[in-house]
């Protein structure tokens, strides 16, 4: 009886917002989804990295083959993508560790640290690109 009553009041008070373009993700939400996306990217990247490590350790000939592959634009672009994902995932992970210790959990500090992590990741990504090319 009580449950039924509660449900009806909730239904009546529920706000309706179907103007999806007005809904914006806050910085911490973007930071969170990027952490997940970069994590999944690196699971796939691990297959490439493991293949390169295993092949390069087989023989000098195989090493030179992997080494020459790394001179191609595609391989460098993939390596840059992996380094970018790694850089962001690492920074967002460090932010999580700080949050585990009870800091950056307020609205302002949470927003700021999310933005700082993303900006630093862009800086690392540019540095990785400069280093690779």
């Amino acid at each position, binding site marked *: 009886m009580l449950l039924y009553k509660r449900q009806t009041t909730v239904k009546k008070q529920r706000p309706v917002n179907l103007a999806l373009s007005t809904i914006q993700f806050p910085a911490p939400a973007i930071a969170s989804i990027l952490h997940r996306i970069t*994590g*999944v990217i690196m*699971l796939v990247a691990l297959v490439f990295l*493991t293949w390169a490590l*295993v092949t390069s350790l087989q023989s000098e000939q195989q*090493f030179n083959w992997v080494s020459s592959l790394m001179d191609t634009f595609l391989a460098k672009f993939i390596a840059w993508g992996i380094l970018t994902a*790694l850089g962001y995932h690492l920074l967002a*992970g*460090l932010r999580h560790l700080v949050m585990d210790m009870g800091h950056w959990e307020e609205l302002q500090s949470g927003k700021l640290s999310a933005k700082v992590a993303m900006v630093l990741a862009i800086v690392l990504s540019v540095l990785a690109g400069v280093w690779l090319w």
Partner: protein
Amino acid sequence: MVRVASTFGRSGTHDYVLVRATAIILTLYALFMVGFFVATPEVTYQVWTGLFANLWVKVFTLLAYTAVLIHGWIGIWQVLTDYVKKSSRRAFVQLVVSVALIVMWLTILFVLWGV
């Protein structure tokens, strides 16, 4: 009824700790490898095999692959439980990822053994 929501560890709390502990190992290993490539002017076959001939590099590498096995296993579980609602499909993807991680771990073990 599901009482314990965990995947690799004994409990959710154990998973939580495992993700963070493995993250620290992976951070150190990533810094080590990037540092090696930045500090080495030319990585030749001799330099490359010489690096992995060191016992501590073998141990560090296998430790990192153990860490990524646990970290990736729990991580993909967290993502899958949120986005893949069909149990059979979720279990299938989890199986593929988990087996791939174990296969990579074993491959690295045997390759490092021979360097």
